[in-house]
């Protein structure tokens, strides 16, 4: 009977070791969560200038692979992404001077949608030229974000598959900056 008693004592000891291990691991993980939550929530978010936050992603040219959103078949990469305690802002930088065009915002939104496909929960886009900048909040749902740019995406897809453009939008300033103005029959004079 002695050996049964010893076996039971051994079993109890290993059981208490196991429980102790689980308890210490649990306390350690809880500690990490508390520290993380504290760091994540402290201080106000700087929504006016997201570039003051932590840089989490940077497009460094051809060596940087784009993001792919498999659901909407949109690919792209913002110029940079900043994270202000969970509030991720994608930056679209335009090297020209002057105002921000609607096409810049659409491009930035498409790049943000692509980044969301790779897990970056982009909540705002910032379009920045040499002289001005604008921050635009994005809808939380990918579907709602896609809806905002769906016309342009579908049109681009149709043209890529060989269809003709519905109409040109000739404007003197636009046509002057267009890369294909020499070949365009609809260009503004």
């Amino acid at each position, binding site marked *: 009977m002695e050996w049964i008693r010893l076996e039971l004592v051994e079993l109890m000891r290993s059981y208490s070791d196991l429980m102790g291990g689980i308890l210490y691991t649990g306390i350690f993980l809880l500690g990490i969560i508390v*520290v*993380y939550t504290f*760091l*994540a929530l402290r201080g106000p978010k700087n929504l006016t200038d997201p*570039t003051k936050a932590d*840089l*989490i992603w*940077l*497009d*460094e*040219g051809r060596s940087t*692979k784009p*993001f*792919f959103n498999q659901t909407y*078949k*949109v*690919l*792209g990469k913002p110029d*940079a992404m900043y*994270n202000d305690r*969970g509030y991720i802002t994608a930056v679209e*930088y335009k*090297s*020209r001077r002057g105002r921000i*065009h*609607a*096409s*810049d915002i*659409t*491009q*930035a939104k*498409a790049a943000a*949608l692509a980044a969301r*496909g*790779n*897990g970056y929960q982009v909540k705002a886009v910032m379009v920045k030229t*040499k002289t001005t900048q604008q921050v635009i909040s994005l809808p939380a749902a990918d579907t709602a974000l896609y809806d905002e*740019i769906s016309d*342009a*995406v579908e*049109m*681009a*897809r149709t*043209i*890529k598959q*060989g269809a003709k*453009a*519905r*109409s*040109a*939008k000739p404007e003197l300033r*636009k046509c002057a*900056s*267009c*890369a*294909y*103005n*020499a*070949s*365009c029959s609809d260009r503004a004079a």
Partner: protein
Amino acid sequence: MSRKSEWISASEVGRVEFCEKALELKYAGASVSTKAQAARVRGDQAHEQFNVQAKAADKRCFIASHVWGIDDPRTECLRQFRDTALMPNRSTRWLVALYYRLSPALVTVCRHLPIVDAVARWLCARVLAKLSLRAEVPERKSGRAK
């Protein structure tokens, strides 16, 4: 497998918004004007300048960047692992977020305590070795299939 023509890039979406005709001409193979080519070169230079400014203010304290340098191919390998393996999964995304929170402090400790620095270097090398092994296995499998 989706067809290549279904995929649309963000810049193409922007171009359509700018002028549909411009995208049509691009796909028709119209030549880019010399003025536009020059503007593109200037734009690339301005983007590089933007990157330099962004990097100067970069508060990311990747341990790998500390160990190997910010532009090292090994650091880039870990970044790709982050973007392709960790970020797409909700279950592993929090690990990245936690890493961003804790790594600045860890790098500071590494700079002051050589023993912690040595452990960090050893750990980074181990992680990289595991990743290299993971990348090699599918290659070997595909090599056999051929």
